Every structure is written in structure tokens, then in C-alpha cells.
């Protein structure tokens, strides 16, 4: 019983109207006066969902005027027009041809002759006595009736209409049949119970400020809502998920004591390669593919003093304790520009500023590589470059820093170190972490910057450094397996994307 009352209280005005239309004698409802058809059907659907009424669908066929039919009801059918013409006097066929199109004339003559309304003799058509009495045909009557009613149900035809319809059907484009699904509702037992329990009290639907101000709610009941009903979607404003992730990375690095550094997206080879002791015209220079620029081609080199220190380091090692790469270093090559292929140039720039030691720095930014984008490659990617300078820095400490990074940023519990090679670090190491699903994953390349690099830029202490691609970490964190989604161009996907954990 409680449920019946709850149901009764949840009904909207239109639903109540429809339900109340079922009276003891009315158990079948196809429309309701005073309620537009669409509202009636919608209310019926809701009631059906609640089990109060049952929906029945029946297919019916309806006759309507077709194109020619529409035209003839405005004038006459051709046979009647011909008869009217002949009422004045018999006419030769040639004259008639001027009045009617050939098809129409042929049909009308045949029709009238068959009925005995006209006679054809010596090329002339004349009306008969029976013909003179004819005013209208059953077919035309039916057409006029159709024009008035718009449509007539196939099952409801009177015998004479049935006769006319069968004739008209044979003729082209006078009438047509359409099929329509009609809906009617019957009340269920629950419906009847709810109907008995409907109170006459006014019920508040949507609460408005005027209801609150007027106090009308004090006497009224609130309509109950179906709180489990589905609702239309809305989209919140959100940060791009990858951006959110990068913010988290940044925040973690700051918590670990790293200061952020930056650098230009377009870099000179000097900072990208030479300052880092990567020899010109040597395989070491192309350890990673890079773009080059069409225009502008060349940038400017830093101070003469710095340039000459780097030059000497490359050629003979200078004062760095190295024998150098033993070649002629070219300023021109060093001044070539490129969109940076890695972010380590940021470290070179920062180190050349001779930051106070000890210090910890990170740079997070876009780099470029000439790859066609696919599920695992992007033409632009984000890389984090990190370095730590301390007078006591050593290789075992570098491993400690890497472990901390793997734990804090990648959530790794197990790591391993293997030898690695970079032209600008020695010793070098790669750290891999064990992922519960993917197995061992390379996390970062690391090493202690070569003295030829750091000493030329003015830092005597050892510099521990590592770099990692954040893209793969982000993919893992965001649960995506196509890297292109990091830069998703799909608004629907972004709108639906979950909150970054």
C-alpha cells in the first residue's frame, strides 16, 4: 500500500490527467482532449514505465489524396470535365484533343463509353440520354470526401466508398495508402489502485523561488521524483589530463628539492651538443636524430671566453685532464640552429651560469624528433632533465638519486642498473623499473657529466645527471596505450577522461 501511495505521489500533472481519464467505462485510451498528442504519448510512456498502464501498438492503413488527386479535387476528374463539355453539343475528336492531354482523353472516353454515357460515331463524340442525367461519379464523391477528411481508414470504408476506392486505386497518383502505428493505452491493476489513491491535493513539481516566497508549499505536497532515473550529461571544465600529470611531476620534483630551469625550444648546436662535449662530425653527435632548420640557419655564440674554452676542450682537452677529440672545432657548426632534440641543453645553460653548489635542478619541456607519429611515437615529446651538483657527488649517490626518482615519480618498488652510454656522461647508467604488468621498463638514462663538459662551463664539482621521457610514465598513469592521446585532439575523449589519480 505504501508503494501505491508513493507511486501516486510521484506522478506529474500530465500523468495524473491521463490516469484520471480512465473511468469505469473507459478502459482504452488513444488520445485525451486538452492534452497535445505528444504530451499525451510522453505521459503515457512514463506511466507505462511505472507499470500503471500498458501500451498497445496497432498498425492501421489510411487512404490519402495523392498528387493528381489533389489537383482534380480543385476542378473535376477528366471524365466529368469531358461530359460537361459534351452536354452543350457533340464534338469531333480533333477538337477534343485540344482540350485534354492524350492520356486523359483516352481514359475519359473509355470510361464514359463503358458506362454508356457517350457514343462515338463518324469521328464525333455525343452525349447519351443517360449521360445527360449524370452530375457526379462515386469516384469523385470519394475524392471530395478524402479532401475534406484528409484521410480515411482502410477498415472503415462504406460500401460505395469501397467501390470508388477500388476504381481509383487502379488509376495513377489519385490516391495512396499509408501505414501508421497507432498507440492506445489500457490501465493495469496497479494503475487502478493508484487511481483510487490519487489525492486531489495540489502537488509541487519544480520548486521555484515564488513558491518559497509565497509560502504556497506549506499546504501543498511535493511530487516525488524517481531519484534513480538517468539524467542528461554535463561536462565540467577540466585541465588537460597530461597537463595535470605534468603538474604532478613538477610538484614532486619540487618536493624532492629540485629547482626548475628552462631553455629555448630552438637551440644552437653549441648548447645542444658542443658545450656538452659532443664532437662535431662524429657518430656521437648523432646518437639521437634531430631536425635542422631551413631558416633561420645560424644563431649566435655566447662569450668569446666560453667559446674558446669549449673549443680547446674539444680539440685537445685543455685544462680538463682530457686529451680531447683531436679535430678542428668549427664555430660555424656550433652556431647552427635546431629545434631541440633533448632538454639537456637546459642543463648546460644552467651550469654555465655557475649556480651556487650544492644545487639540484630540473627542466621539463618539449623536445622534437623526426619520427612519423604512431601509437608509440610522437614528433613532440616531453622530457625531464635533472642534475645535482655537490662536492661529494659520486656514482653510488647517483644510483641513490635514481632510486628515489623511480620510487617517487614512477612508483617503482624494484629497480636495476645497467651500463649505458652517452657521449656527455661518464660513468653512465640506465635505470629500469619492474612494472607489475609490463615487466622491466627503461626509466631513465643517467650518468656523471664528463669533466670536459662541466669544467669548461666553469663547474669543478662532479655533476650527477639523469633524463627521462615523461610520456611513457604518463601513459601508464593515465591508463592509455596510444601515446597520441597525451596530446589528444578529441574533445569528446577529453571531456570523458577520468580525474588523474
Amino acid at each position, binding site marked *: 500500500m505504501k508503494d501505491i501511495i508513493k507511486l501516486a505521489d510521484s506522478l506529474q500533472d500530465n500523468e495524473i490527467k491521463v490516469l484520471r481519464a480512465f473511468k469505469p467505462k473507459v478502459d482504452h485510451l488513444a488520445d485525451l482532449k486538452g492534452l497535445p498528442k505528444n504530451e499525451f504519448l510522453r505521459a503515457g510512456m512514463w506511466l507505462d514505465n511505472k507499470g500503471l498502464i500498458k501500451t498497445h501498438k496497432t498498425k492501421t492503413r489510411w487512404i490519402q489524396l495523392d498528387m493528381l488527386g489533389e489537383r482534380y479535387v480543385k476542378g473535376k476528374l477528366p471524365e466529368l470535365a469531358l461530359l460537361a463539355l459534351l452536354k452543350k453539343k457533340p464534338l469531333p475528336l480533333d477538337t477534343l484533343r485540344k482540350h485534354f492531354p492524350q492520356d486523359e482523353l483516352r481514359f475519359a472516353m473509355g470510361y464514359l463509353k463503358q458506362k454508356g454515357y457517350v457514343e462515338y460515331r463518324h469521328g464525333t463524340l455525343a452525349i447519351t440520354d443517360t449521360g445527360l442525367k449524370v452530375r457526379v461519379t462515386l469516384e469523385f464523391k470519394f475524392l471530395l470526401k478524402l479532401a475534406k477528411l484528409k484521410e480515411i481508414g482502410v477498415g472503415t470504408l462504406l460500401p460505395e466508398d469501397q467501390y470508388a476506392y477500388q476504381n481509383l486505386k487502379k488509376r495513377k497518383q489519385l490516391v495512396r495508402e499509408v501505414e501508421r502505428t497507432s498507440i492506445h493505452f489500457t490501465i493495469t491493476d496497479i494503475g487502478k489502485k493508484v487511481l483510487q489513491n490519487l489525492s486531489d491535493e495540489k502537488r509541487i513539481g519544480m520548486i521555484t523561488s515564488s513558491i518559497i516566497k509565497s509560502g504556497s508549499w506549506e499546504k501543498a505536497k511535493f511530487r516525488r521524483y524517481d531519484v534513480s532515473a538517468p539524467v542528461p550529461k554535463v561536462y565540467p571544465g577540466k585541465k588537460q589530463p597530461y597537463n595535470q600529470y605534468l603538474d604532478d611531476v613538477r610538484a614532486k620534483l619540487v618536493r624532492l628539492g629540485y629547482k626548475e630551469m*628552462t631553455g629555448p625550444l630552438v637551440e644552437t648546436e653549441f648548447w645542444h651538443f658542443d658545450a656538452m662535449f659532443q664532437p662535431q662530425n662524429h657518430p656521437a653527435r648523432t646518437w639521437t636524430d634531430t631536425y635542422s632548420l631551413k631558416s633561420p640557419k645560424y644563431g649566435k655564440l655566447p662569450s668569446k671566453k666560453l667559446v674558446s674554452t669549449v673549443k680547446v676542450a674539444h680539440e685537445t682537452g685543455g685544462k680538463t685532464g682530457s686529451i680531447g677529440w683531436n679535430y678542428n672545432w668549427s664555430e660555424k657548426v656550433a652556431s647552427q640552429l635546431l629545434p631541440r632534440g633533448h632538454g639537456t641543453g637546459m642543463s648546460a645553460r644552467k651550469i654555465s651560469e655557475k649556480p651556487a653548489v650544492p644545487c639540484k635542478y630540473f627542466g621539463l619541456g618539449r623536445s622534437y624528433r*623526426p619520427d612519423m607519429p604512431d601509437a608509440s611515437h610522437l*614528433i613532440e615529446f616531453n622530457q625531464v632533465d635533472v642534475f645535482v651538483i655537490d662536492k661529494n657527488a659520486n656514482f653510488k649517490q647517483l644510483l641513490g638519486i635514481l632510486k628515489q626518482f623511480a620510487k617517487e615519480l614512477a612508483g617503482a618498488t624494484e629497480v636495476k642498473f*645497467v651500463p649505458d652510454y652517452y657521449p656527455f656522461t661518464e660513468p653512465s647508467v640506465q635505470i629500469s623499473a619492474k612494472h607489475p604488468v609490463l615487466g622491466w621498463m627503461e626509466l631513465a638514462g643517467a650518468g656523471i657529466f664528463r669533466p670536459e663538459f662541466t669544467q669548461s662551463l666553469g663547474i669543478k664539482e662532479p655533476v650527477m645527471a639523469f633524463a627521462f621521457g615523461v610520456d611513457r610514465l604518463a601513459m601508464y598513469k593515465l591508463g592509455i596505450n596510444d601515446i597520441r592521446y597525451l596530446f589528444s585532439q578529441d574533445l569528446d575523449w577529453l571531456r570523458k577522461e577520468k580525474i588523474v589519480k
Partner: protein
Amino acid sequence: MPKVEVSKKDMEKLVGKKIKQSELDDLLSYAKCEYESTDGDIIKTECKDTNRPDLWCAEGIARQIRGGIGKAKGVPEYKIRSSNFLVRVDPNLKKIRPRIACAVVKNIKITDEVIKQVIQMQEKITGTFGRNRKEAAIGVYDFDKIKWPVRYGAYAPSKLSFIPLEMDRELNLLQVLQKHPKGREFAHLLEGHKKYPILIDADKNVLSMPPVINSNHSGKVTADTKNLFIEVTGFDDQTIHTALNAVVASLADRGGNLHAVKVKYGLRDNVVCPNFKSGKIKVAIANVNQLSGLNLTRQQILENLKKARLNASISGNTLLVEYPAYRQDILHEVDIIEDLLVAYGYHNLESEDPEIAVIGGELELEVLSRRIREFLVGFGAQGVITYTLTNKDKLFNRMNIKNQKCIEIANPVSQNWSVLRNWLTPSIMEFLGNNTNSEYPQMIFEAGDVVVPNSKAETMSDTVRKLVFAKAHQRANFTEIKQILKTLLNGLELEFEVDELDHDSFIPGRVGLIKVSNKIVGIIGELHPSVLKRWRLENPVALFELNLTELLKLVV
């Protein structure tokens, strides 16, 4: 980085011990290689050091592993037998491909595995280390088919013919470059020269046309071959001798006897090779423990260096270290210290937590960008990230403006990504254009970088952080976008003005310059329908683009 395949059986023979699958990681790490996978008897591994061609073959890896597990110590010794083999070099090669390093290896048992390793090593060394044969090209020949002395000379293309490998008829030198697959692949290395390098023996039989192809006569090595002649051509002696030494050391490790070859460049200019004289370097003992973080005694240091296949002795506080002649990667004592660490085994190292008390911090520009992103999310807008690479059509033509200066890439992978954007609005228009099937209203923003040419700057350009906020829907308009702009700038405690502006991307009279303290910081407007059409947009778009780098200076 070179990826190398070795046979496990072969490796076990070379190392002198059975190898368990579980040991592979650690054993390979002695040779700076990373284990990748096993396929039957084949072990696949990636050689990490692009500067150590001696490690890109089974023999080299085994040599290093033997050191790591104590089966061998110190610099490997190779005996060079003297001989009368002579290679005369034509001075006309000076500008073409002047230098050559040679060796003869006798009494070597050529098995399929040996052939496989020689070919693999040849490919890897000439590919990576030799920069695709430019700096080093290796030729291997059947010694017994060669009549000494050999001449390395420059020949006019039409004057000489030979049957190259994998062909059955004679081609002249030009035809080799045009018709042979290897000829076509490497023709660019001889481009612009009137004469081509040729190795030819005393019977006028061509050995090869470096760096392109061997002859069919002597340039084929099979299981019947017993003695080998090996040469490396290029431009730089250090490079070609390193490559030669790496190859012949491997063959010597398999039992081959090395014989010297004299290369005669001129009357008094002779080089006898292979030359296995060790390199020498001094290392301050204190620096070993300081840089590695290890706490080794002098004796332990010496032992570990020997494991690394180096020789070492102590003189006062200095280590005198000798390294093998197949290495050219040792420039500094740090290189020796890394060798010591690798021989010690990275898997045996304990990490140490450094104690460095410093305070972290973000860049001000990043803080500002983040705060703004968070602020704009409050309007219900979706943040997006787009690419900084784009093309001129998108930047200018589709925006209905004339071409401007921008940073152009010389070797783009596709014209779609051939320039760096100099403003952000086109990226946002492209994004909207890609999402016309998504529900409207659409409200998006991006704080991202653009690169603006600037001839005064060191890199001829400035990297500038921009912000675009855009609304697209049936009634998107200037007023509502200016409301957002006003709220944002006022939120940053900035007063601003909007001045009238002519800009063809926007509807005339509905576009303005945004100024803060009389500085231009951006642009705001309703996009012109002709621009909308070019992005296939059917809804109005209103947006503003702000220069956050500039704004940061004004915010403080």
C-alpha cells in the same frame, strides 16, 4: 645503438663456460650490453656503447665477459707476424678516400658462425661507427686469390671493369654505381669525383671498389676459405685502425694468426698494420674512489682494472693504465673509472642516498600558467594540448593573413609539421575544426609555447608562452569572451584596455589589441566567417590570445 645476435653455443665456447639464462643480464653487462631476448640458440642483445665497436660481436662480448668472471686478465695480447705484404696507395686518392688500414689473418677455421659474426660486425661497424661506410668501410677477402703487392688506386670509371659480388658479368665502375644495388645505395659517397677508389692486385685482378662493393674474384668468403685479407678505408687513421683492430682481434680470438701489412703512402710515408700497441693514460688513485663512491684498496683497484681488460700499475699516487688498441674511446680518467665500475659489476653496487639540503621551486612562468589554467577551468572550459609543429598553410592562409616569418624545418618528416608556430590561435582553430561533431557549446583553452623569430636573440628566436581561450557555439560573441578576459586580468590585479585593430582573421570592428600598462599583451575578437569556413566550422568562434611571458613581467 647496435643490436647484436650471438649463438649461445658459440658464446659458451668463446667464454669457456656454460651460460645459464639467469646469468645473462649480469654477464652481458660486463660488455655494456643489455640482454633483450632468446630465440632458440640465438641471444639478442643491445650494445649500449656506440663508441666501442670492439664489443659489437660475439668475440668482443666474450672477451669482456672473460675478464668480468676472472677467466682472463689485462689487455689481451695479439702477436703480429712480420711479412712482406705490401699495399701501395695512389696519392691521387687524397681528396677521394685517402687512407687504408690492412691485415692478413691466416689459418682460421671459417665456420658458418664465423661468417655470420664477421658479416654482422662488418655491418655494425661500418653502419654506426663508420657512419654508413663514409668514415669506415670494411672489406674481407680470400687471401689465397690475391697476387701481391696490392695497389689502392684511383681509376677513371670507364677505364676499368670487374665482376662485382652477386653479379655474373663485368661492369665498368660507373655501371657498378648505376646497376648494382650496393652501387646505387652508396654512390653518393663518391659523388663529384672523376676517379673512383679501387683495390687491385699484381695480376690486375680487382679486389674491390671501396666503399661500395667487393669483386666476385677475391671478395667472397666461404667455408673453404682459410686465409683472409682485411682492409678498412676512410679518411681518419684513428677511426680506420680502430675498426681494423676490432675486426682482427675477433678473428685472432678464434685462433687466426695475424700478419702485418705495410701500407706505403709515399717514399717515406709507411704504416705497418695492424698495430696493437696499447694506449696509455694516467689516473689519480684518489679520484677512483671519489668518483665511483667505492671504497677500494689499491690492490682491489688494480684487480678490477685487469678484469676490465686493462693493464695497470701504480706509481706514487697515480695509476698507469694501458688500454687495448681496438679502443679509441678513452680520453679522460673518468673513462677508466667507468671501466672499473663496469668490471666491478653494476649489479654489485650498493646505492647511497646523498644528503643535500636545498630547497626546490618552480619557474614563475609555470606557476602563472598553472594558476591561470586552474582559474579558467572554473568557467567550465576544457584544457587542451596541441603540437607546436604545424605548417604555413594553417598558420597564415587558413587564418586569412599574409605569410609571416617563422621557424622553418629543413628536414621535416611531413609538410604537416614543417614550421614552429608563431602564434597559438591556429592550433586552437584546428582543434575546434577537428571536433565539429562534439556537443556545443565548446569552451577550450591552452597555455602553450610558440616560437617567435627575433634576429637580436642568441637563437634568432624567442620561446613565448601564450594562452588562448576560445568559445564556440551558436551565439559565441565578443562580449562574452571579453567578460572572461576581464575576469582573468582583474583576477591578476591588472587593468587593461582593448584598442581597435585591423586583423583579417577576425570580423572587422570586432577585434582588438589587448593592452596592459600600455604594453601589447594580446588580441581578442570574433573569428571571420571566411576563416571559420576554412576550418570547416559552422558555429561562431570568439577567442583571445594572451602573451603570458609578457604578462608575467607586469603581474609581479
